[in-house]
């Protein structure tokens, strides 16, 4: 082995590392390591002077490899590798020793933390000592993007990307795009009509030459990697040809099956053949095969008879298409935490106890009551309405630990809408705190309290039950210390937001992580909020965490910008840390071929051959090979062996 010239640079990270790790001692210990020709410490290695010091040292000491003992490689590996490159070093000969997250931040005793930091640094030095200079592999990109979810996030991302000239496939699970935003009546704090601002965007999507819309569809399988994903999308049959459908409603008029209407959250009913709502995109009816009597003219067939244009086809089959895309945006949205979980609040069994989205439908001009606030049980105008915030949120012991972020605002909006509809009614709001951070938000809440005279009660509701045609609300006002009893005509629960049903499945399909609450995990909470941990897959909207419409739109546009940036390059560079076959040892037993999750290895003339573009460098092959005939570059057995030694020395 030619002798390496390694430089070690130990970062204080201000006091973050230096407070618990004796950085000078680490630098000194490293200077005694074989191959190390320079070892320094500096207060902020990632700062400009810090990086310059590394640069200078590489030149002065003719270094061929560097180790930076600092924070997690997730943060600054790229920074330091780029810097090494600037000094003429190969970036793959720069290693990070994580002595902050994995050491300084988790230990108090300076002596043991220093000792561990030395081990971690030494281990990185040994690894760097055998690092090969590698050049990134150029991979062609597919300039097409998959957007999953047709809510406001997916719509915004799709439009932004399509406007930049890239092809987009927008996949929506339901029969229409629009998502939950379509169900809202007005939006806070400006009270503009939700449909009025969303519908034009939906139309844009349907008319955009770069957007292919696939509703009633789900992503089934995703293979490949950034730049070149292969996705399999399954489209359920709608049994209606959208090209022919004239949305005349003749079919629904004769359909004998009546089921609750999901769009109105069960407050109204629809037929088996239906259009989710009048302005649905695509503008076509859909036959719900679960509700239909049997897709069979012998059983019923009334809708088919009624359709003059012959748009209905009972023999329509599910369609599966496979598409190549370069990037994916996941915008699968949220669902409300189910009322059934809230046993103390009736568990969804009490009449006239609604969730927030149901109340939106009551207020909406296109909703169940055509915009008149009537209580569902007897269609009378409710005079006392109780709004309860934080239902299921901020309750780590029983429900969701997190704050759902939008409930304070929409409850204030609900109270306001109610008061505008029923000026002589009383709106009570139970709250824990009011969280109204956002442009114009605080002013909005104040206005509802003062001008609309909503009665805000600080405290929780302990029980709801039906009494004498009303809902008895038992709660406490913690400001006065009084127990409160209200006989309400209607109760509206601001239920927590949770990741939409199917989020877990889509995360599995895409191989991206979820956080402890089940939302899709971003790559870094601050610096990479729209990236997933998998390159080429981006996040937008409530699938990543509770957020309101402006924030969702911002995130969707951010994700779109990332996608556009990614796909604006003619080729992508694929990490060169791929598997390499040692031909002298390979016997062609094919174990690596079987083990490889990417089908990246084939047998050529009796020896394994790695397709470097497909190889992701996971190393499953190397652990499976009993002949040490295949290894991942820069994570070789020899390197691991020396790292083990360094950890135990």
């Amino acid at each position, binding site marked *: 082995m030619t002798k390496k010239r390694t430089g070690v640079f130990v970062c204080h990270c201000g006091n973050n590392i230096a407070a618990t790790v004796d950085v000078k001692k680490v630098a000194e210990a490293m200077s005694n390591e074989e191959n190390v020709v320079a070892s320094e410490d500096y207060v902020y290695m990632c700062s400009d002077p810090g990086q310059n010091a590394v640069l200078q040292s590489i030149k002065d000491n003719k270094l061929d490899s560097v180790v930076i003992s600092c924070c997690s490689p997730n943060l600054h590996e790229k920074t330091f590798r780029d810097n090494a490159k600037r000094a003429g070093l190969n970036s793959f000969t720069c290693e990070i020793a994580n002595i902050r997250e994995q050491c300084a931040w988790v230990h108090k005793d300076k002596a043991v933390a220093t000792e561990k930091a030395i*081990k971690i640094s030494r281990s990185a030095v040994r690894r760097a000592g055998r690092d090969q200079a590698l050049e990134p592999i150029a991979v062609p990109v597919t300039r097409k993007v998959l957007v999953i979810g047709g809510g406001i996030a997916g719509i915004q991302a799709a439009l932004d990307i399509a406007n930049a000239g890239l092809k987009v496939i927008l996949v929506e699970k339901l029969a229409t795009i629009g998502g939950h935003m379509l169900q809202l009546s007005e939006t806070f704090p400006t009270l503009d009509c939700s449909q009025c601002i969303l519908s034009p965007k939906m139309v844009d999507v349907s008319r955009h030459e770069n957007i292919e819309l696939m509703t009633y569809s789900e992503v089934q399988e995703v293979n490949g990697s950034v730049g070149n994903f292969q996705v399999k999308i399954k489209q359920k049959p709608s049994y209606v040809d959208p090209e022919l459908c004239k949305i005349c409603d003749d079919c629904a008029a004769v359909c004998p099956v009546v089921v609750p209407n999901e769009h109105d959250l069960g407050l109204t009913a629809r037929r088996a053949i239906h259009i989710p709502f009048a302005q649905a995109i695509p503008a076509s009816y859909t036959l719900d095969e679960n509700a239909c009597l049997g897709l069979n003219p012998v059983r019923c067939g009334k809708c088919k008879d009624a359709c003059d244009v012959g748009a209905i086809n009972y023999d329509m089959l599910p369609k599966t298409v496979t598409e190549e895309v370069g990037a994916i945006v996941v915008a699968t949205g949220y669902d409300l935490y189910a009322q059934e979980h809230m046993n103390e609040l009736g568990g969804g069994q009490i009449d006239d106890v609604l969730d927030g989205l149901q109340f939106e439908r009551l207020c909406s001009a296109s909703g169940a009551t055509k915009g008149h606030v009537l209580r569902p049980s007897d269609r009378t105008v409710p005079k006392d309405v109780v709004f309860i915030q934080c239902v299921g949120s901020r309750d780590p012991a029983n429900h969701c630990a997190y704050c759902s972020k939008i409930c304070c605002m929409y409850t204030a909006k609900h109270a306001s809408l109610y008061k505008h509809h029923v000026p002589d009614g009383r709106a009570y709001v139970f709250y824990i705190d009011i969280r109204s951070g956002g442009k114009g938000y605080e002013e909005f809440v104040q206005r509802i309290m003062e001008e609309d005279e909503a009665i805000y009660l600080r405290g929780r509701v302990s029980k709801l039950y039906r009494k004498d045609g009303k809902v008895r609300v038992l709660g406490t006002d913690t400001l006065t210390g009084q127990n409160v009893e209200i006989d309400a005509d209607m109760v509206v629960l601001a239920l927590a937001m949770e990741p939409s049903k199917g989020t877990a499945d889509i995360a599995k399909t895409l191989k991206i992580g979820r956080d402890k609450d089940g939302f899709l995990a971003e790559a870094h909470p601050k610096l990479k909020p729209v990236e997933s*941990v998998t390159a080429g897959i981006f996040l937008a909207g409530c699938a990543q965490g509770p957020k309101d419409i402006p924030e969702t739109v911002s995130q969707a546009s951010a994700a779109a910008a990332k996608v556009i940036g990614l796909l604006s390059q003619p080729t992508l560079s694929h990490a060169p840390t791929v598997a390499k076959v040692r031909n002298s040892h390979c016997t062609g037993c094919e174990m690596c071929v079987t083990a490889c999750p990417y089908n990246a290895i084939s047998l050529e003339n009796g020896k394994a051959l790695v397709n470097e573009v497909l190889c992701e460098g996971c190393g*499953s092959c190397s652990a499976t090979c009993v002949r040490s005939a295949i290894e991942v570059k820069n994570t070789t057995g020899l390197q691991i062996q020396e790292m083990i030694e360094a950890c135990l020395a």
Partner: protein
Amino acid sequence: MSEQQAEVTTDYEPRIVAFLCKWCSSAGSDLAGVSRIQYPSNATPITVPCTGSISPNYILSALKKGADGVLVSGCHIGDCHYIEGNFLARRKIHLVKELLGFVGIEQDRFRMSWVSAAEGAKYSQVIKDFVEDLRPLGPQTKVKAGRS
């Protein structure tokens, strides 16, 4: 033997080599750091791409070089960044674990865990538990190279 006994009586700190997959467990240990969750310093992490890349040689080598315990930690089943690396690891590591137990090496010297990137607290707990379980066993001398 006398040397071993002398070691036991002094303050014995188990030395652990922790093989962490880059995507889940290493990120999980980073989260423990970000959350400032304190745990014993006995385990030195070695980050590998995937648990699927961990050859039984790594484990045996660590024991031979004197590790008192070896930890292998990766993504939960179904969450593997490389799709199925942890499935392959589960099978391979099962064999290693069974073999170590079979020849009479204390089962507690080797451990495998699934720690996701969101489970900083779990990572710290895994280390805490491991250290606690290793303490009563004393230094590992069975596989360690060199005669005592």
